[in-house]
């Protein structure tokens, strides 16, 4: 059986936009039929590099990948909107591409007329549209507005109508580019039902999306593109898992890079201008302790990052490590993690407190504590030492969090303050909201039927 879509070693090269070569492109396009002419490699951009796959009839195929990985270019090549520079795309049957919904609508004329025009553009005959007209209008939930000019539609109405026409073309092959966000929950379900119906009727779907859930639930096979190359294909669960790990790795690197930059900036700041805090606190030494604590308190809630302190005790290195014991920046919700501070005390002292503050991306303090509050009695610190803060279950919802770390005297006199310098990200498969995810479970009794989809 011939596959519905056969992509054979497809590459696509775009011209980088440069005024200079405009004439050269035009000349070579007319004379030799090749668009790229004699452009140098640095004047081109390779969006796809030798991508091959087959979509069997009746299969749903998901393409995932980061922004700029060539997903949409691939879809356009399959749709025939652009031609691949190398390789070949064969499609068996009528295509309908949900790339931009309602792309052909004319704003001045009514929805009714636009349905006809759009349908004809997508390859239907007038009679076919006539037969499906009511179904289309009903699907788009547009009965009341179908005779109003399209320019008066809201963007949601516009997209719904576009979607309705495109899926009623009755294609053999449906190409979908990230268009499921076209309306309320009810409409999204209707779209998914429509896709399910396509599958039942043995039509093929090529789906480009960032919604990994959708790929796992809906697709028979997944294809992972990275910088225009195939990086994985096959069973959706496996490909999605590999992709998620890769994304985490990248985030990890980015966070590490950003953290290094922040630390460097903080170090420079200190070298340039030692902050006045120590002096201020020194002069206030005679003052009641409450004032100093207030100062520290207020400082503790200012949101800009930075580093200050006398460095009598210095926090040399901070590592956050996950369950595998390796330092990292991306953790799963519920993982055990450890925050380790390597410190050096220049002089022996018995007045020291180590503290930690955890903030979410909105700068809400999720949790803050220190060794003083938890009634540790400092006795002595000297030379190299390490302080580790362990969290047994990182019960946070998905998001980015920042850490405050500090070494100071009991009265707030700062040795070394690291203000929001450390960032880590919590990942979760569950899309719950808030900050804190208490360890929990559900139970159901009586006249209720409910099943766990996990």
């Amino acid at each position: 059986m011939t596959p519905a879509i056969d992509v054979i070693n497809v590459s696509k090269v775009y011209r980088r936009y440069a005024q200079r070569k405009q004439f050269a492109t035009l000349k070579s396009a007319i004379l030799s039929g090749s668009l790229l002419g004699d452009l140098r490699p640095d004047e081109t951009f390779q969006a796809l590099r030798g991508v091959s796959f087959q979509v069997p009839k009746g299969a749903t195929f998901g393409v995932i990948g980061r922004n700029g990985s060539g997903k949409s270019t691939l879809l356009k090549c399959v749709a025939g909107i652009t031609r691949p520079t190398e390789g070949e795309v064969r499609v068996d049957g009528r295509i309908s591409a949900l790339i931009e919904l309602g792309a052909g609508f004319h704003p001045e004329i009514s929805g009714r007329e636009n349905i006809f025009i759009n349908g004809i553009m997508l390859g239907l005959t007038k009679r076919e549209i006539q037969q499906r007209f009511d179904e289309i209008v009903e699907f788009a939930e547009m009965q009341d507005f179908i005779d109003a000019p399209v320019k008066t539609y809201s963007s949601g109405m516009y997209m719904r109508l576009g979607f309705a026409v495109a899926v009623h073309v009755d294609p053999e092959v449906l190409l979908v580019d990230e268009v499921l966000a076209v309306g309320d929950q009810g409409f999204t379900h209707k779209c998914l039902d429509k896709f399910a119906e396509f599958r039942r009727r043995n039509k093929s779907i090529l789906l480009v999306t960032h919604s990994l859930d959708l790929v796992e639930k809906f697709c028979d096979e997944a294809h992972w593109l990275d910088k225009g190359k195939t990086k994985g294909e096959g069973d959706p669960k496996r490909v999605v898992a590999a992709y998620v790990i890769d994304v985490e790795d990248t985030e990890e690197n980015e966070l590490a890079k950003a953290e290094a930059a922040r630390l460097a900036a903080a170090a420079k700041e200190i070298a340039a201008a030692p902050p006045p805090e120590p002096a201020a606190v020194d002069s206030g030494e005679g003052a009641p302790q409450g004032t100093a604590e207030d100062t520290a308190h207020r400082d503790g809630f200012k949101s800009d990052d930075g580093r200050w302190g006398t460095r009598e005790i210095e926090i040399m290195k901070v590592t956050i490590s996950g369950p595998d014991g390796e330092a990292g920046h991306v953790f799963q919700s519920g993982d055990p993690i450890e925050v380790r501070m390597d410190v050096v005390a220049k002089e022996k002292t018995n007045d020291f407190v180590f503290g930690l503050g955890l903030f979410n991306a909105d700068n809400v303090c999720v949790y803050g504590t220190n060794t003083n509050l938890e009634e540790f009695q400092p006795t002595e610190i000297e030379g190299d030492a390490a302080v580790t803060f362990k969290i047994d279950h990182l019960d946070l919802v998905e998001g980015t969090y920042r850490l405050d770390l500090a070494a100071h005297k009991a009265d707030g006199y700062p040795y070394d303050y690291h203000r929001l310098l450390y960032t880590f990200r919590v990942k979760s498969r569950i899309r719950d909201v808030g900050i804190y995810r208490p360890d929990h479970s559900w139970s159901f009794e009586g006249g209720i039927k409910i099943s766990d989809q996990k």
Partner: protein
Amino acid sequence: MFSNLAKLLRYRGLIQTLVVRDLKARYRGSVLGFFWSFFNPLLLLLIYSFVFTQVLVGAHDPAMEPYALFMFCGILPWTWFSSSILESANTLIAGGNLIKKVLFPAEVLPVVTVLANMVHFFFGLPVLVAFLIYYRRPVDPLELLWFPVIVLVQLVFTIGLALFLSALTVHFRDLKDLLGNIVQLWFFATPIIYPMQQAPENMRSWLNLNPMTHIMISYQEVLFFPGPHGHWKWLLALAAGSIAVFLIGYFVFDRLRDSFAEEV
């Protein structure tokens, strides 16, 4: 190229729908709506009548009366030509959404532009007929058989040029601005508001090189001047030339086709 050309015929349903859409959309929202298709040429005729009977009296041969009617025979088809050319330069860029997001045969767009303007030209014809009757100009019915031929030649020529210009404008946006001036010059280099006989002797051979000259003279001979249509040899030669222009225009368009989705 020729297989693509054959496809153009398959798209006639689409072309027809888009022409209708264009016409509907053009006057949607205006009070007079479709009547503008009649009023526009009518107003144009009144303006030229006023200028040449009240302001520029005696600037033309008295044998050419009614001069406004003479000019109108040329201006009406010229308007079709010039607005087709000017609009088609922009048509691919304006329809960029279709080319980039939908599998859409791009050549349909300039063809639709030319055809929609042709329909406008047809709407102007009743005004012309009304004035022919008003001035009691006898038109030889046999001569009138040439009229569709002239329209067809102009259509093929205009579509060829529109394909060529629309494709080039995608790469050179400057063309759009330049074109306004070129069309203006072209207007005066074509015997429309002056008869060919009035043109200086040494200029006539140059004017003969202009394809639009022969189209306009043909219209004038059929509709305005009494006597047989003496220009038919030129017209048939131009018909062959128009087909050549169309093929060249289509060739260039076809070669640049792949670039549209990227450059628009």
